[in-house]
């Protein structure tokens, strides 16, 4: 269980995307976030992006299935992220994680999402707990 997890452990990288325009439109529809920046090439271009950025929340939410796949015996009690720079439509996204703190009761994980740029698109964190402790 959580005792087998130690500081420095890495979560297997998950690759998602690239997301196309219909994918972003579907997310906008289901989430209610219809900001044209994510959907309209002209709006994105006016701000200086070669393509619309993917909704940050869509990417942050994608860490949840990655964490669940990593350890089904843990529950995720918190998930957070800073949207450092846009990840654009058409970019493949690499999600990764690394354990920063580990006790019997709580695992704290640093999360990163990278698009095509060298710098991360999202720097996040999650807290997981043994399923029986919740």
């Amino acid at each position, binding site marked *: 269980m959580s005792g087998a997890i130690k500081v420095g452990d890495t979560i297997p990288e998950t690759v*998602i995307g690239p997301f196309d325009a219909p*994918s972003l439109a*579907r*997310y906008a529809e*289901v*989430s*209610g*976030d219809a900001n044209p*920046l994510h959907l309209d090439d002209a*709006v*994105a271009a*006016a*701000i*200086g992006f070669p393509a619309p950025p993917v909704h*940050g*929340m*869509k990417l*942050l*939410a*994608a860490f*949840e*299935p*990655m964490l*669940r796949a990593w350890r089904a015996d843990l*529950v*995720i*009690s*918190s*998930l*957070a*992220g*800073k*949207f450092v720079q846009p990840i654009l439509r058409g970019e493949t996204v690499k999600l990764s994680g690394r354990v920063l703190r580990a006790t019997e009761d709580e695992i704290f994980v640093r999360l990163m999402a990278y698009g095509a740029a060298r710098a991360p698109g999202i720097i996040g964190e999650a*807290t997981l707990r043994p399923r029986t402790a*919740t």
Partner: protein
Amino acid sequence: MPLEPPLALGPFRLRVDPARAAAFARETGGDGASVPLAYPAIWLAEPSLFSVVRDLCAELDVVPVHESQSFSYNAPLVAGESYDLSVTMSREDAPPRLTMLATISTLGGEPCARIETMMRLVPRAGLGSAS
């Protein structure tokens, strides 16, 4: 530094729509077996709530840019269940930023989640023709 006292909104009584939760899970890579942690993002985009943000941004002539987001749970949301969502909104000027703190409680008053949304307020004039 806060510009004015925080604005309290709600509580709003909202339901986890099972079909929408499954669709949200699908669009974010999940299997739909449980309500996604980020599902309350849907509630924050509700017109009754987000219209306050939109109106404020129009008044200030700024665009909200999503800067950070967090979800912290005491208990998971359950598909088909209703909850009360209360929001406290506060604005700072250095840097220009809007913070929304939302709490989700069961109808019995038990807190089950806390959400923080931070948005940088970018002057519309700086966004070129996108404005």
